[in-house]
């Protein structure tokens, strides 16, 4: 019997389950290695060379180097492990979380001060809240220039 995954229809959300964990095992273990100062220094000196020491897929390596946390999550990363990359870069959890929405750092921070993202329209796929796939990416930059983005 397949694992029951009732969380698959929550928009904008990847649950770190056994399948994701298998996919991301080395990605997350690489992240854990960044808890040592020596490894952080070696990674910073030559990211590609450091990543090549780990059995990551090319897509995982590219996602890390691009600091594309959404791609890292899709490829099996977990936010608490990925946070080691952010820590290496000197980023806070708020900067990391915000980077996954498309909003600028200021926009995301202000959303939180206003009380955070609303649950309305964001419970199930198929609704029309701001976290739904059809409404990505978020933030004024993207809303202001859809034509430019297409070009």
């Amino acid at each position, binding site marked *: 019997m397949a694992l029951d995954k009732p969380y698959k229809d929550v928009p904008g959300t990847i649950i770190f389950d056994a399948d994701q964990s298998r996919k991301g095992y080395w990605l997350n273990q690489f992240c854990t290695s960044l808890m040592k100062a020596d490894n952080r220094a070696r990674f910073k000196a030559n990211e590609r060379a450091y990543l090549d020491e780990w059995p990551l897929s090319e897509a995982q390596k590219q996602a890390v180097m691009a600091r594309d946390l959404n791609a890292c999550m899709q490829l099996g990363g977990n936010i608490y492990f990925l946070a080691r990359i952010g*820590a290496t870069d000197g980023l*806070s*959890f708020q900067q990391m979380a*915000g980077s996954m929405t498309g909003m600028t750092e200021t926009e995301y921070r202000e959303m*939180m001060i206003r009380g955070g993202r609303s649950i309305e329209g964001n419970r199930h796929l198929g609704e029309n809240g701001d976290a739904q*796939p059809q409404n990505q990416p978020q933030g004024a930059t993207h809303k202001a220039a859809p034509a430019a983005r297409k070009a």
Partner: protein
Amino acid sequence: MARISASVYTSHVPAIGVAVDLGKTQEPYWQPLFAGYELSKRWLEDNRPDVIFLVYNDHATAFSLDIIPTFAIGCAAEFEPADEGWGPRPVPKVIGHPELAAHIAQSVIQDDFDLTLVNRMPVDHGLTVPLSLMCGQPQAWPCPVIPFHVNVVQYPVPSGRRCFQLGQAIRKAVESYDEPLKVQIWGTGGMSHQLQGARAGLINREWDNAWLDQLIADPKACADVPHIDYVREAGSEGIELVMWLIARGAMSDVNADGARGPAPTVRHRFYHVPASNTAVGHLILENN
């Protein structure tokens, strides 16, 4: 005999620890949050326990994907604050209580809860931020602390019901310890927050407060809330709230197979948005 005198519940947002460590608690962003813990700090001074049993989750700090224990009890004499990548927090080391920890492990495991015993475990913000919120910046924490880790990072995570049952077994264990210790049990994590994806920043004030009402008044029903409700309503990281049910299950008005004590007194209740990405909830319940 030892007894559980009270339970404390609080979020453990890492940015709160940073605000304390960098002296930012009186800045406009943080002041309303720390004001909500002023009463709590005075209360803890007036009601100092002999031991704190502190339920929290390690955030991929002591436990990588090498080993993922569902429930782990810290049995060591001391625990160092962890380097989570930003350097260790400048807070006192945590002094454990190996004798009581070993006693609780023995009692709870023989009561069919298969705990993992841990003797070496750096403790991360999940454990040190609640201590900072409740104690400020002392030279040493006010009493020994038994760290108790719950896996809420990789699925499968334990159900609310299992956590609630475990709390009852922990109380039984404490009450069978010979020394007359006053023990507080703290449940930490939550409330609504999501740190990932397009839904990052989710806060559900209404759900959080209804959950708090139920945790206080009808904890058994609260324990039956399924995982998917936490994920959908309180965000992917809102699942941490199951840890509060361990502390609630240890209160004397809860007893699945025998006499129950009176309902606890709600000494303090506080809710604030935001701390970084997170809704902060806080309760103090005293046994009567």
